[in-house]
């Protein structure tokens, strides 16, 4: 079956890619399976200089999910280009660079540098980091800022720019519209929901950062809702994610309107999950009457009447 999918900058063998932050820079998973199997790879967020991130503990388990507050730890864009990208050049899989920052200037600097590297085929602009210049307002929650940073990055990037949206907003379509106006080539969603767990014995938030990002199957309904909503207001391609653990979940995102589907948290539970999903996808697609990935995209919007059937 044809699993191919072509998106701006990304010529993918299949629609499956690991989500940023859940796959490092690929090396560790490369010891488990051949990264050439993957449709694409999103690498860990890059910032202008190295960041240590938050204090530990940084992760907690929740019902059907987890919280993380890594705090964008990464060696900085220069080190990533020097030490991490060469390894990935050995693979025939498009690499997406997740770009983060505290200021527009930082986003621009990182995007300019990393987009010049030949293995980088697209940028995923991560506009949901908590500390930015403008008095605590977040790039991902203020439509004006979202548009502005998108436009600034578009200007310097040598590759298409997918903007990664935060779900922690009253109306995600407003932000999607803003980044579309800013010139985004695609959208990537969702990033994590903000959450907290309190340690009963410690009598304080379990994560050192107190608040963390909720991911995993728990958030899938929120992600599906947002992909569906956004598909109805724009034709920008969507990389969908949030709680994917099976090929059925992938199909659900395709029906909602995603053109590619990223897998994050599930890699921790099942390190081979991406390769297994890719293996199962053809069967699941044909079970539900689809002859290719392309064929399924957005098909959840054509509502024919169906009934609960008992037989």
């Amino acid at each position, binding site marked *: 079956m044809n699993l191919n999918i072509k998106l701006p900058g990304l010529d993918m063998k299949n629609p499956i890619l690991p989500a940023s932050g859940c796959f490092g820079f690929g090396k560790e998973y490369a*010891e488990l399976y051949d990264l050439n199997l993957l449709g694409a790879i999103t690498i*860990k967020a890059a910032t202008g200089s190295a960041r240590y991130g938050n*204090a530990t503990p*940084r*992760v907690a388990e929740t019902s059907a*999910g987890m919280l993380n507050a*890594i705090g964008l730890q990464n060696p900085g864009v220069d080190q990533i280009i020097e030490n991490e990208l060469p390894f990935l050049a050995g693979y025939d899989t498009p690499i997406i660079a997740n770009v983060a920052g505290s200021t527009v200037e930082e986003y621009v600097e990182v995007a300019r540098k990393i987009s010049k590297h030949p293995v980088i085929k697209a940028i995923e602009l991560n506009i949901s980091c908590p500390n930015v210049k403008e008095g605590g307002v977040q790039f991902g929650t203020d439509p004006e800022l979202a548009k502005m940073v998108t436009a600034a990055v578009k200007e310097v990037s040598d590759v298409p720019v997918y903007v990664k949206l935060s779900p922690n907003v009253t109306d995600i379509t407003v932000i999607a519209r803003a980044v579309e106006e800013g010139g985004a080539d695609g959208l990537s969603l969702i990033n994590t929901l903000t959450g907290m767990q309190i340690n009963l014995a410690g009598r304080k938030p379990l994560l050192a950062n107190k608040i963390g990002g909720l991911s995993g199957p728990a958030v899938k309904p929120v992600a599906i809702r947002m992909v569906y909503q956004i598909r109805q207001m724009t034709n920008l391609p969507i990389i969908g994610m949030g709680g994917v653990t099976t090929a059925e979940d992938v199909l659900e995102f395709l029906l909602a309107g995603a053109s590619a589907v990223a897998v994050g948290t599930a890699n*921790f*539970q099942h390190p081979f999950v991406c390769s297994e999903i890719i293996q199962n996808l053809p069967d699941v697609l044909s079970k539900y009457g689809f002859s290719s990935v392309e064929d399924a995209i957005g098909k959840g919007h054509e509502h024919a009447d169906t009934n609960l059937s008992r037989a």
Partner: protein
Amino acid sequence: MIHEHLEIISRETIAKDTVEMTFKGKMAQENILPGQFLHLLVGEGSNHMLRRPISIAGVDKQKSTITIIFKLLGEGTNTLAKAEPGDQLDALGPCGQGYPVDELQMNHALLVGGGIGVPPLYYLAQRLHEKGIQVTMVAGFQNKEQVFYEGAFRSLGDYYLATDDGSAGEKGFVTDIIKKEGFDFDQFFTCGPTGMLKAVSTQLEDEEGFISIEQRMGCGIGACFACVVPAPDSESGYKKICKDGPVFRAKEVVLA
């Protein structure tokens, strides 16, 4: 590191809320060092999205078995404990870096363990003993009910026991015993709660040694940056416990 469904061949409660479990699997043929751990999948479906790291407490290459000892703490370990002989557990392992037993040259090793920091030290004691190194073990537990493997350790060398409430061995902490006995050793090896690790490494700061630390983990293989610890002298300034550790040279990392 390999991925394998290990078959449980025995499960036994060896102390209060403490379970010893032995698996059969090809993994036992890997070159497993004391201090390395298994990253175990717990339960079914999406009830537990994170695996549980548990140290390897023993390996029998002949029988192709691996033993772990864990304490019932939360939902994960309680679910693990319900698995029965014959069941299979999804495991990644051996994970991380262990004590570099093959490279160690010395006469006398001091092992200091607290609570469920004791299990990896048992496997270490066995390996050191095999090499003809004299082993002295200092074990600390909350109370008598928690104590396990006392006899096993005694068969490998000297053994000292401290409990918080004095219900077994000396009343007090492992550091009290170390102070009192003033051991003459070449290197120390410690594993236990962070508080104990800090106390021991401060007390023995003039000595060479290794510590094994724990932290909440995501991936367990070095990809997610969940488990870092500051390592001021390293190039990056940090180490990943799951990949570069859990065993470190005592002065390599800074305990939080």
